[in-house]
């Protein structure tokens, strides 16, 4: 822990010195979110306090150091639905990476980074995601921890006013160190983004290189029409352990995206998802052992000062038993400079 603090201050100090040497001033920032979640799944209630700090330090004009950790507790009854509540805390390093922006089309990343399979893992941290629960197919393409240890190339291959073609290519090594787990894998993703239509489609591929090599594929799309406060997202993923999809729609109760009233701060969310067990499931897949269908309905309210309230109800149908899933969450998004003078 002391080494982490030392590293933090070294980077922050180095960033501040570079600010003095550069025309464009740099300052490291500390961002992230604090949240408290409550869940009742099939009658078993649990509570989860979470803090997710994000540290970002630009260095000069081409370098960036960024990191995100996750410290959370899990408080639940000892026997599921009976017994006294007990809890434990655990921490995880989601990413700690060094990025070099080589040119307008290429960024080179080394270190620990979020596995870029489809879009949910990279783009929807808890302060962005519309629903508390991650999709059932989330473990597909992101095992073993959602993070990879290795290197990555990424960027915008082609940038035009009406369309962008983006890509990532990465390789990760097997790591079993506690809190830093990663699978041995290689893969990539391509995406086509049409900014004027607010539409993005893409595909992912991963070759998982352990426990018997396997191919994992996925597709995604996201659509945010410019004039309507609607947000539609979907993913499909396939692995030997199973396949499935989720489709989510979220709508602010407003006529336009620019409207800001008490009603427009209310967001209605719906999600359907299906999962189909594969031919070669293993416990390491972290996927359900049976086919599952689920729908979720949620209401989110965006309060001033970056505070959001989430509430949702879901119904899960499977041969292992149907279940009601209730969630609530309050999340606060913060951002402040991590070095004196950053507010200037």
């Amino acid at each position: 822990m002391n080494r982490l603090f030392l590293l933090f201050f070294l980077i922050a100090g180095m960033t501040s010195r570079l600010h003095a040497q550069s025309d464009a001033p740099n300052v490291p920032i500390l961002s992230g979110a604090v949240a408290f979640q409550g869940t009742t799944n099939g009658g078993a209630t649990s509570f989860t306090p979470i803090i997710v700090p994000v540290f970002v330090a630009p260095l000069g004009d081409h370098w960036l150091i960024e990191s995100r950790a996750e410290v959370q507790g899990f408080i639940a009854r000892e026997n599921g639905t009976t017994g006294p509540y007990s809890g434990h805390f655990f921490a995880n390093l989601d990413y700690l990476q060094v990025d070099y922006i080589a040119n307008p089309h290429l960024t080179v990343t080394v270190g620990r980074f979020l596995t870029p399979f489809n879009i949910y893992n990279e783009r929807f941290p808890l302060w962005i995601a519309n629903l508390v629960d991650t999709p059932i197919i989330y473990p597909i393409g992101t095992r073993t921890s959602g993070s990879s240890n290795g290197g990555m190339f990424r960027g915008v291959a082609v940038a035009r006013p009406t369309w962008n073609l983006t890509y990532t290519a990465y390789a990760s090594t097997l790591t079993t160190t506690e809190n830093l787990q990663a699978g041995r894998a290689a893969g990539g993703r391509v995406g086509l983004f049409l900014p004027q239509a607010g539409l993005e489609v893409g595909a992912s591929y991963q070759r998982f290189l352990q426990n018997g090599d396997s191919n994992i594929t996925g597709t995604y799309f996201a659509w945010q029409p410019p004039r309507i406060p609607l947000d539609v997202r979907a993913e499909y993923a396939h692995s030997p352990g199973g396949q499935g999809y989720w489709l989510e729609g979220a709508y602010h109760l407003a006529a336009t995206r620019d409207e800001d009233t008490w009603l427009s701060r209310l967001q209605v969310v719906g999600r359907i998802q299906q999962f189909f067990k594969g031919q070669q499931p293993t416990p390491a897949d972290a996927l359900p052992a049976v086919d599952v269908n689920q729908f979720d309905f949620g209401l989110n309210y965006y309060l001033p000062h970056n505070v959001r309230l989430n509430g949702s109800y879901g119904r899960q149908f499977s041969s292992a038993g149907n279940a009601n899933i209730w969630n609530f969450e309050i999340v606060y998004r913060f951002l402040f400079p991590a070095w004196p003078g950053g507010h200037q």
Partner: protein
Amino acid sequence: MRTLCLTLLLISLLGYSLKVFATPQTATPTPKASKTTANKNTAPDPGEQKFKENCGRCHNPPDSLSPREVKAVVRHMRVRAMLSAEDEQLILKYLAP
């Protein structure tokens, strides 16, 4: 079969979206949403347009950030949200003129 259905669905949505939204957006933003638009008859700031197209897909504009904080945030998003170099500069100018 499911893959085929999903592919067809994606292609349909792509076609529909291109048809409906092929015309560049010229709608004037509300004064509240616009930081730089002087009146309703002028075109939106290109940086604001890029902010809406890219950043606005996931979150609202930040409440108040200093230019130095903005620079760190936009660099972060350049890498994380796959912003193009041109969009990065336009958004930077919009948020920290």
